[in-house]
């Protein structure tokens, strides 16, 4: 574990590895995920989905379905309020009401294979499925636009007839929802100064977050106009706001209770089944549970964009990057909102490049509306930039780690969008890789290669609330609104325990519903430990301040004369009445000194903690099949401060393996009609235990200035480097530069055979 160069305070609890508080329930099967909930009289819901990628809905007939014994309700978009094409406030950022509602239940058109058209509630899931077959939908099938190239061509099928973009004006139908541009310096001049220029075009396939738990929701509508949703989500307040908007009900009438969540990675930040569960419950007067099958998850939730990226970069012979010209188009899916803007802002983020022009296009296609996937847009971007940089380093004859150090951004360097970085740890991650046992080891053997890549992610702040309750026995409960996707409860309990001098076993973390905690934004954006941790820290400090006042009362002193040292309240001057007290001792005296003590805090920080990661992988390629075996992988990531190092390592390892899957095997296969053909986990091929080596981690800690604990946010950036690192490793293994993801065996084999044929032709010509 690399040490940070700045002075580190010593902690008692933070940095240790206690067993997580929710662990017992998770290993015994007691923990309740959304699909585990059951209520008396509960009905089961299923969703009818479009079999066409693009079609007008001429009519929907639900009579036969309603007549099936056991069916209690059938709903379509006719049961939802009007949804005009305008932006409305809903959750963190305004959304287009028509797009939001139409993705829940289609209106005049279906826009992708799997688009929800109707929903049924029945006394059993089997009956509900039978009922789906009895719903008659008359479709007028339209040709689909399935790639950014096809969608951007003149005369392309138009996905959303009302879509306009600012550049083409109010009269032009288009599939291009947005164009962003970032520039610096003089591009033409920059390229004339370059000694080496590399230009390549990359294509990446649409991929899915791949969480093992499908979406779920149980909706319970009370006769009083209030409803409750139990669901697995990354953001209860977001679900509440978005669902209330779609349903046309006051947000305050909806309560969202977070079930445990079986993975999200960004895909469970949005709504699908939640408003349907309430809609069906309202119609039937009974609780309704909806779950998705795996096929529905793949067809009809939010994968991330496939993309086309043209990347041209120039460097001087001493290894300085001098110019970059990038054109990138990402699939938005059926509605605007791909992460192309984020991709454009991160693609060259780790490097000081004086001249660049980046054009980014958000393009509609007849695929599901994309949702966030762990550092959205960044892995696609890094594939392009980090492999071009690898080629430039090769041409300059400079080691890839050194090349990165020559060009690295540091504190004060401008970001792509302009503002200068504050203290960051990119250089430290490259150094950590250089000094790692992996990098220092020799890789020998035919068809073996080593590749390195770096990545960046902004991380966000947003809003969090926390309360810290001091119980009369001196134990503490910490109440947060952040859903726990993988160890968060432990981290928050540790922060409170640290501040209050409590034993970690005496602190109970609680993830609360939307009525029981103040507004808290989503678990995502690498913000949870950062912002909720900040709130818990401040709430614990608030409790501490109140406890000092109580001690002061008991000791007949002023609060400023009470110190808190080594877990004890001690007087700053000796006094008869002032005997040092532990938290437990003072907790027993709260009733008589003013009543219960509850610490509270809310935060909405202006500071954020941008994160960098550098990853190195060793691969072996089978030249006869194109299969790639990952032999070894190491990731170095700047996490600011690792609260619970085991779960920090877990984030680094998990993102690395997702990135490897993205690199080697995962992709959506659509046929000529725009229908998804690999709707199961056999053919949507994610890494298994047998595919992976142990993932070595180097935790770098460069604290975020301004954060009370220096936390930076850890969840996302680990997924950014791997596709490029694997591509670079393959290039060094077999001398082939892959520019398409995934680098699956058929593609790799084709490239190997082409190279062999080209070599043979060359050799023959030389004879």
């Amino acid at each position, binding site marked *: 574990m690399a040490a940070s160069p700045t002075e580190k305070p010593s902690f008692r609890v933070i940095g240790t*590895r206690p*067993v*997580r508080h*929710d*662990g*017992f329930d*998770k*290993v*015994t*099967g*007691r*923990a*309740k*995920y959304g*699909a*585990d909930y*059951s209520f008396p009289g509960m009905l089961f819901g299923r969703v009818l989905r479009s079999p066409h990628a693009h079609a007008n809905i001429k009519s929907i007939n639900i009579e036969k379905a309603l007549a099936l014994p056991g069916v209690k309700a059938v709903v379509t978009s006719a049961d939802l309020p009007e949804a005009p094409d305008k932006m409305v406030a809903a959750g963190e950022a305004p959304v287009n009401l028509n797009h939001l509602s139409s993705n829940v239940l289609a209106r005049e058109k279906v826009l992708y294979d799997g688009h929800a058209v109707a929903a049924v509630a029945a006394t059993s899931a*089997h009956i509900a499925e039978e009922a789906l077959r009895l719903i008659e939908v008359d479709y007028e099938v339209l040709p689909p636009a399935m790639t950014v190239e096809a969608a951007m061509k003149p005369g392309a099928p138009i996905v959303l007839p009302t879509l306009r973009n600012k550049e083409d004006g109010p009269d032009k139908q288009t599939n291009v929802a947005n164009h962003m541009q970032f520039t610096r310096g003089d591009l033409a001049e920059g390229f004339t100064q370059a000694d080496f220029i590399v230009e390549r075009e990359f294509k990446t396939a649409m991929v899915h*977050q*791949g*969480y*093992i*738990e*499908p979406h779920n929701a149980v909706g319970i509508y009370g006769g009083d106009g209030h409803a409750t949703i139990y669901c697995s989500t990354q953001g209860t307040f977001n679900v509440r706001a978005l669902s209330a908007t779609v349903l046309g009900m006051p947000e305050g009438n909806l309560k969202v209770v977070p079930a*445990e*969540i*079986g*993975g*999200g*990675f960004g895909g469970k930040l949005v709504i699908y089944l939640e408003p349907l569960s309430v809609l069906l419950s309202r119609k039937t007067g009974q609780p309704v549970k909806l*779950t998705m*099958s*795996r096929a529905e998850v793949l067809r009809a939730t939010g994968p991330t964009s496939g993309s086309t990226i043209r990347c041209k970069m120039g460097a001087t012979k001493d290894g300085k990057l001098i110019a970059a010209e990038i054109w990138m188009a990402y699939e938005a899916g059926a509605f605007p909102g791909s992460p192309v803007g984020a991709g454009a802002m991160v693609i060259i983020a780790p490097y000081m490049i004086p001249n660049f022009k980046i054009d980014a296009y958000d393009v509609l296609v007849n695929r599901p509306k994309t949702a966030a996937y762990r550092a959205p847009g960044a892995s696609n971007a890094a594939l392009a930039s980090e492999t071009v940089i690898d080629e430039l380093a090769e041409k300059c004859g400079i080691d890839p780690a050194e090349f990165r150090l020559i060009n690295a951004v540091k504190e004060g360097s401008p970001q792509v969008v302009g503002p200068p970085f504050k203290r960051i740890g990119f250089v430290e991650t490259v150094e950590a890789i250089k000094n790692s046992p992996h990098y220092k080891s020799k890789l020998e053997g035919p068809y073996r290669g080593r590749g390195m890549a770096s990545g960046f992610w902004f991380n966000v702040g947003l809003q969090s609330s926390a309360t810290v309750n001091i119980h009369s026995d001196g134990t503490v409960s910490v109440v947060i609104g952040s859903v726990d*996707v*993988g*160890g968060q409860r432990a981290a928050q309990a540790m922060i409170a325990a640290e501040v209050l001098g409590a034993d970690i076993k005496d602190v109970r973390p609680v993830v609360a519903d939307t009525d029981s905690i103040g507004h808290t934004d989503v678990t995502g954006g690498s913000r949870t430990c950062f912002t909720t941790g900040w709130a818990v820290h401040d709430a614990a400090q608030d409790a501490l301040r109140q406890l000092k006042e109580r001690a002061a009362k008991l000791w007949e002193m002023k609060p400023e004369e009470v110190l808190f040292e080594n877990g004890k309240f001690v007087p700053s001057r000796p006094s008869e009445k002032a005997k040092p007290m532990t938290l437990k001792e003072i907790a027993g005296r709260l009733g008589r000194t003013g009543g219960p003590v509850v610490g509270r805090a809310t935060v909405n920080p202006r500071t954020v903690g941008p994160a960098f990661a550098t990853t190195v992988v060793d691969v072996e390629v089978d030249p006869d099949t194109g299969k790639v075996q990952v032999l070894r992988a190491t990731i170095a990531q700047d996490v600011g401060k690792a609260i619970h190092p*085991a*779960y920090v*390592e*877990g*984030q680094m*390892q*998990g*993102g*690395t*393996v*997702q990135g490897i899957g993205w690199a080697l095997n995962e992709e959506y296969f659509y046929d000529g009609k725009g229908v998804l053909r690999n709707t*199961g*986990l*056999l053919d949507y091929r*994610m*890494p*298994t*235990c*047998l595919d*992976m080596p*142990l*993932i070595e981690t180097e935790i770098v800690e460069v604290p975020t200035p301004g954060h009370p604990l220096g936390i930076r946010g850890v969840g996302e950036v680990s997924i950014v480097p791997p596709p490029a690192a694997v591509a670079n490793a393959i290039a060094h293994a077999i001398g082939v530069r892959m520019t398409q993801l995934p680098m699956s065996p058929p593609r790799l084999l084709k490239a190997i055979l082409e190279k062999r044929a080209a070599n043979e032709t060359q050799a023959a010509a030389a004879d």
Partner: protein
Amino acid sequence: MAKKTVVETTINGESMEFLCEPRQSLLEVLRDELELTGSKEGCLTGDCGACTVILDGRAACSCLVLGVEAQGKSITTVEGLASSAGLHVLQQKFLEHAGLQCGICTPGFLMSAKALLDHNPTPTEPEIRYALAGNLCRCTGYDKIVKAVIDAASTLAAGSKAA
């Protein structure tokens, strides 16, 4: 709707009887009829292993077994791992090594690992990876899961030597 059948099995050491339709899978029966929701649904096609139980001594995807096929068989689910004496060594090691993040795949992994160790108490790392290849995890990258099983195996082996 077909008539329901009475099925007699042993689940987690207890004799149990349940009613089910022929079309209901064992997974569905466990979760919806018997309220044993520890086994999870991830794919219903036997690809993710989240529904793994031990059926007559072998790890099996309960989504691929019909409820009626359980007649006369012995089933262990994750609910049957711990005893009144405490957690099973595997469960303990998963916690100590942080071999879970969201936890949805954990019951399946625990059952596959138990089935492995019941047959092969001293597996190598490749043997562990092979035995667990049918269980998908998207959060951990498998590193800490493998380490937990390695540690559990050696702890159990040491314990049985001492016995």
